[in-house]
């Protein structure tokens, strides 16, 4: 008998908890929290505690598969890789590099994301590379970079334990980032910290709130401007901070003038007294942390929403200190890292722009290639549409499942069906993989070495505990083989630590992150040199870009407001028990048992009007499609609105959602579309 415990980083959310996987004779038999790890501190959420189970699942992909005459057959690695190289090079020759596209993965390691973008850019010469950050925090990356100069969480997770005010909007924190949510609960109950929540939906934290603002979906700019109006009117702004550390204040002052509490109440339904109360508490508490997630970003005004929160924080001088800042909570275990490492259509690793000639020259030299493309590439939703239109002829998807995760599923299906050549690299046969021409079996987080970067910018180690099943391989190894078959000799590594050495030399914010230094619990970027201790909070003394820039934005309506026929607002999101497209959690017995079926949350009065009983199946219809789904009658949602978890293929919320996107960030508006609800 062999039994060992291997310290690694959790695969689920952006908290990045340290956990031990128990390996017993080649099988994972447990997952335990690390006591000394700065985030987990001896605790985990239920997903972390059960993170080992799916790894053992019999459904794992164990051999490369090639589609032949409508079905899949087993293939060797050599023929699968050769086929990909041949087809991709053929498309490149016939239709140019931009007929290819690559979707990277926030579930894979930093090293793998770096290699995916290197594969796209250096080998196949296209910037058509993107990943699911586009669907979650693209607005943050754009909005905070413009205002502060850095699109990441400003503070550290442990700073939640010292904050005196939490201002949470669009984050169901206990469900999505449980170990941040629990720090908020403890702070409120043990230390009487103030809690302001602005969320249309009642969440677990609502019962602890000092003020609950339940805005109408899609009106965020209006109420944030309203708060700033109140703060300026009552003289609660931080005049010195504004003068010394920011620019553009006059324009803000001018813009928010008309957002009186009365006007805001009319737009958002937030009672003016509550708005004023929230503004006063936030403005007058020094250690105040804004916390937000998809409720802010997933709108056609996502960037405006983020900029408005940044304005609010600068107005009150609440950025650049411990326990005070703007904290976008990153969803995936490594979505921060996938962005940092350049799996985005416009930047190389470390947010170095592809349109900047110096950056291109730097990467050309390092990668020993010529002619890196200087045009910004296509983003996730654009890639899928271009696939349907035949403009993208070859698509390589690593560890993503757009069939469930992207908006307007019927559109996505049509595009995937039309795909000329689709490669999917994953650990299970996903709803997307069934459309593939070649399927490559990857390794799970427990089967490879690497690093993830959590939401507080902590780059930490992922360690191999077991071998991948069958012939499956680590994603970084597969990407290197594809590069070699594509005729590129600059992608050969013995171990992910060698990839990290390359990352370090090309990526200033990761400059000091050697594997030796990442033991035991990682380092927080920016960490530019081997001597640098890492950075727990950003914008100390001055903003990353110098002066912080106020970027006042006017309120704009969502793309698809309700009307007489489609009279309910639909919002979608995640629940505590499941992870995204459910690929992992439907194969985790405890999690699947707790939440086995999809549902739509609907207000009791609306249900009564429609004659719907609890747990009765109803039909939810949008302009794009319809689903049949069980009704869950609850006061969590306000009248004439409903909420559907997006995890379930059985009643996919994304059949209904709209693929309207933010003009800058290209993020879809998952949080507002118009639907009708019918009794069946």
């Amino acid at each position, binding site marked *: *008998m*062999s*039994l*060992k*415990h291997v*310290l690694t980083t959790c695969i689920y959310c952006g908290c990045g908890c*340290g956990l*031990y996987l*128990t390996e*017993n004779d080649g*099988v*994972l*038999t*447990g*997952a*335990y*929290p*690390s*006591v*000394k*790890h700065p985030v987990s501190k*001896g*605790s*985990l*959420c*239920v997903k*972390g*505690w*059960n993170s*080992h*189970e799916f790894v*053992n*699942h*019999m*459904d794992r992909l164990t051999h490369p598969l090639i589609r032949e005459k409508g079905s899949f057959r087993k293939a060797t690695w050599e023929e699968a890789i050769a086929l990909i190289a041949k087809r991709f090079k053929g498309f490149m020759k016939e239709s140019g590099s931009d007929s290819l596209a690559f979707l990277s993965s926030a579930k894979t390691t930093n090293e793998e994301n770096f290699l995916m973008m290197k594969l796209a850019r250096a080998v196949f010469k296209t910037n058509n590379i993107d990943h699911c950050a586009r669907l979650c925090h693209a607005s943050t990356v754009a909005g905070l970079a413009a205002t502060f100069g850095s699109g990441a969480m400003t503070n550290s997770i442990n700073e939640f334990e010292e904050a005196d005010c939490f201002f949470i909007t669009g984050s169901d924190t*206990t469900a999505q980032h*449980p*170990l941040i*949510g*629990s720090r908020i*609960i*403890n702070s409120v*109950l*043990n230390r009487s910290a103030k809690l302001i929540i602005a969320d249309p939906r009642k969440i*677990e934290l609502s*019962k602890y709130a000092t003020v609950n603002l339940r805005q109408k979906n899609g009106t965020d700019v209006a109420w944030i401007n309203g708060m700033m109006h109140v703060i300026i009117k009552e003289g609660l702004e931080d005049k010195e901070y504004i003068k010394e550390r920011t620019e553009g204040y006059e324009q803000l002052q001018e813009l928010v003038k008309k957002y009186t509490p009365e006007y805001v109440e009319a737009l958002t339904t937030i009672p003016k007294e509550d708005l004023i109360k929230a503004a006063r508490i936030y403005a007058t508490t020094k250690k105040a942390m804004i916390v937000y997630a998809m409720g802010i970003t997933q709108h056609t005004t996502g960037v405006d929403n983020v900029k408005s929160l940044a304005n609010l924080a600068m107005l009150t001088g609440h950025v650049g200190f411990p326990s005070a800042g703007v904290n976008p909570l990153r969803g995936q275990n490594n979505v921060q890292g996938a962005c940092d490492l350049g799996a985005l259509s416009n930047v190389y690793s470390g947010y170095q722009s592809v349109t900047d000639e110096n950056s291109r020259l730097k990467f050309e030299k390092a990668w020993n290639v010529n002619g890196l493309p200087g045009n910004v590439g296509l983003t996730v939703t654009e890639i899928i549409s271009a696939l349907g239109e035949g403009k993208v002829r070859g698509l390589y998807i690593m560890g993503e499942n757009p069939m469930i995760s992207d908006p307007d599923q019927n559109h996505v299906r049509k595009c995937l069906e039309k795909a000329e050549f689709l490669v999917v690299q994953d650990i299970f046969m996903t709803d997307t993989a069934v459309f593939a021409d070649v399927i490559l079996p990857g390794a799970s987080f427990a089967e490879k070495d690497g690093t993830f970067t959590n939401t507080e910018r902590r780059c930490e180690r992922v360690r191999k505990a077991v071998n991948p099943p069958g012939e499956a391989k680590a994603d970084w190894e597969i990407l290197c083989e594809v590069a070699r078959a594509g005729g590129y000799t600059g992608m050969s590594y013995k171990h992910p630590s060698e990839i990290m050495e390359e990352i370090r030399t090309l990526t200033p914010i990761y400059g000091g992150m050697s594997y030796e230094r990442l*033991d*035991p*619990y990682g380092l927080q970027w920016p960490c530019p040199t081997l001597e640098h201790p890492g950075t727990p909070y950003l914008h100390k003394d001055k903003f990353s870009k110098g002066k912080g820039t106020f970027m006042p934005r006017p309120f704009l309506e969502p793309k698809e407001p309700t009307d007489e026929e489609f009279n309910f607002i639909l919002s979608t999101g995640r629940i*505590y028990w499941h992870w995204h497209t459910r690929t992992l959690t439907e194969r985790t*017995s*405890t999690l699947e*048992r*707790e939440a086995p079926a999809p549902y739509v949350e609907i207000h009791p009065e609306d249900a009564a009007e429609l004659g719907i009983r609890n*747990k009765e199946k109803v039909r939810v219809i949008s302009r794009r499609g319809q689903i049949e789904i069980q009704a869950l009658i609850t006061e969590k949602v306000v009248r004439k609105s409903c909420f559907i978890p997006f995890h379930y293929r059985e009643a996919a919320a994304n059949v209904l959602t709209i693929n309207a996107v933010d003009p800058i960030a290209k993020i879809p508006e998952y949080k507002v579309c118009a639907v009708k609800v019918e009794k069946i």
Partner: protein
Amino acid sequence: MSKMIEKKKIKGLLKEAVKQWHTYVPQKHIGGDVLIAPLPEEAKELEAALDNISLADDDLVISPKDIFFPQLETMFKFKKGEIAETVESSPKLLFGIKSCDLKGILFADEFFKRDFEDAYYLSRANERLIVVIGCINPPRPGACFCTSAKTGPFAEKGFDLQLVDNGESYFVETGSEKGEEFVAKYSGFFQDESGDAEKAVNSIKAKAEKAVELKIEFQKALDLMANDDFIPEEKYKRIGERCVYCGACVYTCPTCTCFNVFDNAKGDEGTRVRIWDACIFEGYTREASGHNPRNQKWLMACRRYEHKLKYDKAKTNMSGCVGCGRCLASCPVDIGMSKFVQEITEDKKIM
């Protein structure tokens, strides 16, 4: 004449023991976490592992119950109608566990043979030798309450050997014939104690008891629960509402033994597996119709307290809580048995 063993001889003893036993010892990882795992048999790996053993009063996150009752356990494999049992059985030496955890193991032993004999557990636990090292300082300060639960910091019985830390050496207490045989077999590592060992041991134990600072009225709580004394619903509610359903209190508990059974299968081939379950989950009592007799958060939370303090005690005359404090230490929102006991016995709001 009583025995003692010098600390510097422990490694040598374990190196010998590995030849006969799967030797489970607390081992330190990078960063300082300590987990209990078997020593490897291969010489080089063994040397490295011995360098990392830790017999101080470390916080083992998980009680050693997982040695006999792993979090995830394959019960049998099946293929085309053929079934192959995967019962594990081997001699195990548990070296350096704590008295609360010993109590937990004894409790689980009892459970797994009470109504029917659980072959998987009993076969794993069948041949074993337990060496307790009493705590000089509580591993989870502020959470440990063994002196109140009367389970520590030193064990009174149930161990094969118990070591009492005396600085450079341990006094050795023998609790069973098997323990005596062990000392005899490895006699070269032990030596006779010449001084007044009993007095020294008593003084060490008394000091260790004082080091456990958290004192709660545990017996009073047991009595309240046993007598069906009214426990205000709002207390359960406040605790239950705070819970975030991670399962840690149950997973880390030395006496929690609930599991769920499922098949990991593809076609007609696969394994039947059991995995730790937790009574704080909604699905734990959800019926096939969807009806759930424990349908509210606070009802789910309180069944754990009722079980540990009332039903276990009534059924076995042992409390289902051993005072290890892991439920509190691992709870992300600071709920734990000690706080519940304080709430119901001290008539004040703790949480």
